[in-house]
């Protein structure tokens, strides 16, 4: 490495460097079942991604749609695809 930052532990093993990539957690947002929700105050970074989690079991007769979303500026807009078959969804917004 000719420039940048390298961090080592006491044994001389590299634990992090600017040649790495990573994702920093910007926020966790929950949209309840069958409900469209707008979340505000999402921090900004040059690049962001959104990961979704199902936090309840998919039941046997449940169509189990996850919310769709759009992220613009500081607003995460989450939309229920179905008024009765959309599951509770956790959104994790990462930035780098």
């Amino acid at each position: 490495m000719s420039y940048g930052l390298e961090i080592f532990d006491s044994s001389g093993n590299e634990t992090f460097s600017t040649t790495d990539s990573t994702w920093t957690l910007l926020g966790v947002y929950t949209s309840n079942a069958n409900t469209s929700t707008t979340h505000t105050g999402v921090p900004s970074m040059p690049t962001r991604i959104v990961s979704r989690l199902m936090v309840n079991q998919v039941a046997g007769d449940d169509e189990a749609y996850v919310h769709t979303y759009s992220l613009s500026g500081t607003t995460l807009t989450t939309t229920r695809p179905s008024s009765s078959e959309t599951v509770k969804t956790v959104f994790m917004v990462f930035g780098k």
Partner: protein
Amino acid sequence: MAYGLSVKNNSGEVLVDSDFNHYHFVQTLTHSSVTRVPPLVDGPGGSYDQAPSSPNSLDSDQPRGNIYKFIFGSNGAKPPMCFIKPSATGGSAPYASIVLTTRVGTNWEIWVLQTYGASAPTLYCFSPIDQISASTSGTTYGLQTFNSSGDTTFDSRLKPLRVIDSIITTSPSLANTGSSNVGGETNINLNVNVTPNSYTINNAPSNSSDIIYYCPSIAHCCQDKRAHREDDGFQAAGNNSYFYAWARDDLWWTFYRGAYRVGASSKFQSSYEGYASGHVWDTAEDTSSLLAAIAAAALGQWQLAIALAIGASTFTSAGVASGNYYPYENDSRNEGQSNPAIISRASFYT
């Protein structure tokens, strides 16, 4: 930021920002239990004069993966990032994915669905640093950052998350490419045979078994095979001769969840794995009169058989939600939704 530390690479990507809690490695996890969704098999038993009395079980080509349950102790409400280290990679590797991440008391419970018959996967679990209580005493080398409240947000002694690639994935539209209507065929195939969506892993190590991935499952699909058999005629037996007619309808189905693997040439592959399977059938036979026999042959009521079977589907002993797992017909949900896969290396955290 007015103060603090922000570290960027030459692409302008933020690697460390003292305002935000970074994910750090906590531990590797092995599963605490393993289960499968019990099969749902239901239909009239007994024997008939002319109608077939089989098959009356799941087909061997109806997949049901193992569900590995992991318990992750974390003192906080922010979900952990649990990376799957698969038990195998390559063209024959099992598919695996996190199908549930839920808070249970002060723990997080994570379920991993994986192709049945493979060795269990391992999880590499990370938490935001404000939810980590690991000791760093005695270790004085490295870099720490703090936010405006004086809370640690990054600590190189705790092995911060390092990512080698991030891939936006989707799932194939269906898991099985065969037709639903199989005529009178009863040797059906509901195995996952769709071509997976494949993605190149940038910066992949030469040893693909070092790859770990975070990509919780959101897609699922449900597919079935429907068979109809019938016959009618006259059975000559002297004074006991009779007209007969029979019909039998069979319905097999599998409910799949989106799943992933590190395939051949270190490709990250998105496909499905069987979560639950069922088989129901109904049979009608009449030998009492010609008109009754004709009525019997008009059977077409596997939907009724499904409805009857729902009541039998209580799976509490298996620790999974009950139900028939037949929520819709030959379709999928969430398959076109973008789902980021975050790729790292196990060797970063040993």
